[in-house]
């Protein structure tokens, strides 16, 4: 087996008495989409936060490209190529689509401390930003403030910003949340394309998308991974059926 791009070992985090992450270990290997499913409150977003560095674990390790990044903060992990999206869209609402993308490019390159030249006048930054915007199909929305975008468009802008990091791994928290069936289909196609860029750890409630995209599925319940395997294995796992999947989803 190839070396995993992302690996977490025995991660633990408690909020008071609540064990939100209770000894989670998982890997993300080159080229794969690894889906993480589980009921509400299972600890999926918490795990994403631990991987991205916005939360600090009580114990355990996060390794990115073979390097231990447990002590590194979110900005350092981002510059090392960890691209995350949030369950609730997170963009700079007053900045335009293009400005958001330029911000992502300059962030990834560590070029945010230029005080004089206008950011948008920098051809290299702007060119890269426009390419990422085009990739997600937002070119004609370039000058719109991100806060004025439709929900699905904002989701795609977040992916453009993730692409700007020249990612080694995507960590996406429910990218289809709140989307209609058309939006979800488009997003599924986009993610299928992105897997060639970098492997994806995909938290998602949309089972159609998960079963269409995932090479592997892990099931998180109460902060623990109770099952992990291929789509076919997970569909038929009795424990998973009981803990999470409604019978109607398995037909």
């Amino acid at each position, binding site marked *: 087996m190839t070396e995993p791009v992302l690996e977490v070992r025995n991660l633990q985090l408690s909020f008071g008495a609540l064990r939100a992450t209770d000894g989670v270990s998982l890997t993300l290997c080159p080229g794969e989409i690894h889906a993480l499913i589980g009921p509400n409150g299972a600890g999926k977003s918490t795990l994403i936060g631990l991987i*991205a*560095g*916005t939360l600090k674990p009580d114990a355990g390790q996060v390794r990115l490209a073979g390097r231990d990044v447990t002590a590194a*903060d*979110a*900005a*350092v992990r*981002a*510059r090392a190529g960890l*691209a*995350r999206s*949030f369950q609730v869209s*997170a*963009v*700079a*609402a*007053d*900045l*335009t689509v*293009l*400005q*958001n993308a*330029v*911000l*992502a490019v*300059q*962030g*990834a390159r*560590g*070029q*945010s*401390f*230029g*005080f*004089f*030249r*206008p*950011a*948008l006048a*920098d051809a290299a*930054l702007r060119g890269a930003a426009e390419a990422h915007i085009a990739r997600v199909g937002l070119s004609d929305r370039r*000058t719109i*403030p991100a806060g004025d975008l439709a929900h699905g468009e904002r989701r795609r802008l977040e992916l453009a*910003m993730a692409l*700007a*990091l020249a990612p080694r791994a995507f960590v996406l928290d429910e990218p289809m949340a709140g989307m209609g069936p058309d939006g979800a289909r488009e997003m599924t196609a986009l993610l299928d394309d992105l897997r060639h860029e970098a492997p994806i750890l995909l938290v998602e409630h949309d089972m159609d998308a998960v079963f269409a995209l995932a090479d592997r599925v892990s099931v998180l319940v109460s902060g623990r991974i109770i099952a992990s395997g291929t789509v076919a294995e997970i569909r038929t796992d009795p424990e998973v059926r009981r803990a999470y999947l409604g019978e109607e989803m398995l037909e």
Partner: protein
Amino acid sequence: MRREAILNAAIAIALLAVPLAAQAMGEPFVITLATKVAILALAGVGLNIALGLGGMVSLGHAAFFGIGGYAMAVLAAPVQAYEPLMTWPVEVAGTKSMPIIWLAATLAGGLAALAIGALSLRTSGVYFIMITLAFGQMLYYFAISWPAYGGEDGLSIYVRNGFPGLNTLEPLQFFALCYGVLMVALLFSRVLARSRFGLALAGARQNPLRSAALGIRPYSVKLTAFVISGAITGLAGALFADLNRFVSPAMLSWQTSGEIMVFVILGGVARLFGPVAGAALFILLEHWLGGFSEYWKLFLGLALLGIVLFARGGLIGTIAGREVAHD
């Protein structure tokens, strides 16, 4: 041209025209008022970088304003006392030269902002407001108990400091200096807002989690902006002390912090000329309403309440409309 740009130009021209007219009509007091507007606007331009661009609600900017004022006094007082500034480890003389004093005040304001910001920015929201206020008060009480510079009574610098090639005792010439500094600061502030740093600062203000996820530490970006902000307000403090030829702990008081914030809110938070419009309106109100009623600050308070509730862009926003996202 955009409406706001026209409005800004009109304000800049008016602020220049008023003292010129006053000079022609022999009204030096009006020149002094205009100078005060320019200097207080400069302090507001500093705060606007923290508050408007960075979203840092600092109620402690009097600290930087006062430190700038005291930096002037520390350098200029030994000269009028015919003493050296210090004798150990090397003898250093004081100075009455504005360029050196400005540099010192800018550095002192920036350094103070670095220290205060480094601690305050570990908190946010109401805690940030309270902790900046607390640092300001700490310096205020320190100044009160500092006998070398007059303690509670403050210290007079009898002769205004000099600037090469100008006669700063001439009110119009001193005004021109202050106006020039204000214009440079405004230009810098505009350039900064559009730069890569300005973009990073906007990101850190609007969505710090997203900024971090893009590899930008919101803390570092905000702290840098806070330092720039404090440096500019420090420079304003040195000019203000020179205008009055006097420094006192009042410059460091929380009322001063509040007033600087009022300029920015009155004129329009994050609007380039907001602090200029705000300071001008404040001084005019103080002058007119102050003569008409002792309770003018009550009216000012009501006006502020109205602005915060109904006209979020302040004076500039009300006249020029919503800010247009450029490009």
